[in-house]
């Protein structure tokens, strides 16, 4: 059980694919203009990641290590195709608004990274847990970034949620404030870079605060940082 807990902490926080490993930045920055898009892409990535980790883990003893990368890519590509066709069938609006970024999940380094670093060395169950946690961690970052950009950009939340969840979800749309002119920067890729940087900074701040608290709780006095404090 403790191994699974460790996997969860790694995937969701300590080794978060979005915030710490900085993998899969391309979709992360390109499609997080609204929270709906972010959730949609996050869910698709999570599904592919789960499938690929399980499949890679199952075939890990039958694949010669020289050809493992092409095999992983084949597995991932077929799973992406499946997800793409599913989205085309059931969430067509979202499929259209995500566009090229669904097939591009194939090139998401987070997925092949987990296949290579974890699934190819571990049994099926831990691999599946790892995939779920990493996928959730990635989705979490996407969602936070998507929410921030949507609020700043157009003052709404869950705009277009019906594309993902069906027509009942139109009631989810929250209008926080309405403005005549949208803050375009938040919706453009540069805004995504700025937002991403701020979220990483926030995570680092929380980490260093936690570390300080831990040090105080242990009773050891954290040495004040001396260099660079020329005042």
């Amino acid at each position, binding site marked *: 059980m403790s191994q699974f807990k460790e996997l969860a902490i790694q995937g969701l926080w300590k080794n978060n694919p979005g915030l710490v490993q900085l993998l899969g930045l391309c979709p992360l920055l390109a499609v997080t203009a609204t929270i709906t898009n972010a959730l949609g892409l996050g869910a698709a990535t999570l599904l592919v990641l789960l499938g690929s980790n399980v499949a890679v883990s199952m075939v890990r003893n039958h694949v010669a290590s020289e050809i493992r990368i092409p095999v992983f890519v084949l597995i991932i590509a077929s799973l992406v195709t499946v997800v793409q066709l599913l989205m085309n069938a059931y969430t067509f609006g979202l499929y259209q608004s995500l566009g090229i970024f669904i097939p591009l999940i194939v090139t998401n380094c987070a997925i092949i990274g987990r296949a290579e670093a974890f699934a190819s060395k571990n049994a099926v169950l831990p691999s599946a847990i790892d995939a779920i946690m990493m996928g959730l961690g990635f989705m979490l970052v996407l969602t936070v970034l998507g929410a921030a950009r949507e609020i700043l950009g157009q003052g709404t939340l869950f705009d277009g949620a019906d594309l993902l969840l069906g027509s009942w979800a139109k009631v989810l749309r929250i209008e926080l404030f309405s403005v005549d*002119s949208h*803050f*375009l*920067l938040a919706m453009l890729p540069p805004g995504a870079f700025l937002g991403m940087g701020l979220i990483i900074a926030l995570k680092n701040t929380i980490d260093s605060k936690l570390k300080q608290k831990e040090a105080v709780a242990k009773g050891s006095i954290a040495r004040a940082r001396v260099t660079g404090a020329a*005042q």
Partner: protein
Amino acid sequence: MSFKIASSPHQHNQKSTSQIMLMVIMACLPGIAVQAALFGYGVLIQLLLAIITAWFSEAFVLRLRNKPVLPRLKDNSAMLTAVLLAIAIPPYAPWWIIVIGTAFAIIMVKQLYGGLGNNLFNPAMAAYVLLLISFPVQMTQWLPPLSLHSVTLTPLDAICSVFTQFSCSGFSLAQLQTSVDGITMATPLDTLRTDLSRGLTLDESWQSPVFFAFAGSGWLWVNLAYLAGGLVLIKQQVISWRIPVAVLASLFVLSAIAALAAPDTLAGPLFHLFSGGTMLAAFFIATDPVSAATTATGRLVYGALIGLLVFLIRNFGGYPDAYAFAILLANMAVPLIDHYTRPRTYGHRARSQTK
């Protein structure tokens, strides 16, 4: 006996950062006065809003970073950024434009990079680009000079316009932009661009009342005022002559060649030198000591690069004026420029002789 070893530069002109920043702000004053007299009091309200926002943002971030607040506020650099941005945006832009812009300039572009002296980009220009890209409508609402207005604007009207987008008597900015004849007027650069894209020649476009002598009416005087302020700064050795001269010379030469090659579609050098933000940018913004090139040759290259970019964007790009983009792009090139123009240490031979 001990030897005191000090690193270069060994010659100082004994001015503190605070004094230099203040002198640059003072040198802006003639330009601001002319702008206020010819285009209305909007610019003064923007200045006030910008300076207040800049002080608050600077104090806020310094507190977050556990740095002393008052000494940094006193160095006037935040105020200078605020002043430059307030001058650069349209004088009747809504109040939140300048607040967002100044806060972004101070917090993101300056303090997050480590504060004064560490920013890669010119804060005022980065904020200008942010605003121009995010709010294209508000950022292009320039009014023609007061003398061409069909409605007179009182100082109270200026306040109303900035805060509500309607003057106190209820005229919207779009109405104010319209002349007595019902023709919408923009800046000279804007008018020229629109006319040329409609297939008019330069001479035909020149019939519009926004043009005067060889430049835009109103804009000519604003540019002359900034030119005067800039010359004082050079005289006081606050800024080096190299950057402004290189900017103006490269813009002049390029547009002269272009005007000779295509006299009907490309405006001449004098129009370019005295339109839009040329003098303000050349003397006050491009010379920012932090984000500009530092070597003597490097400054000439840096200035010439800005001139070239402005010429290209103004004539062939998508925006009527181009200083913000040109300066940011040149800022990016600064490390490279400085690397290749590093002077030889005194006593060493020139690079060509050592081989």
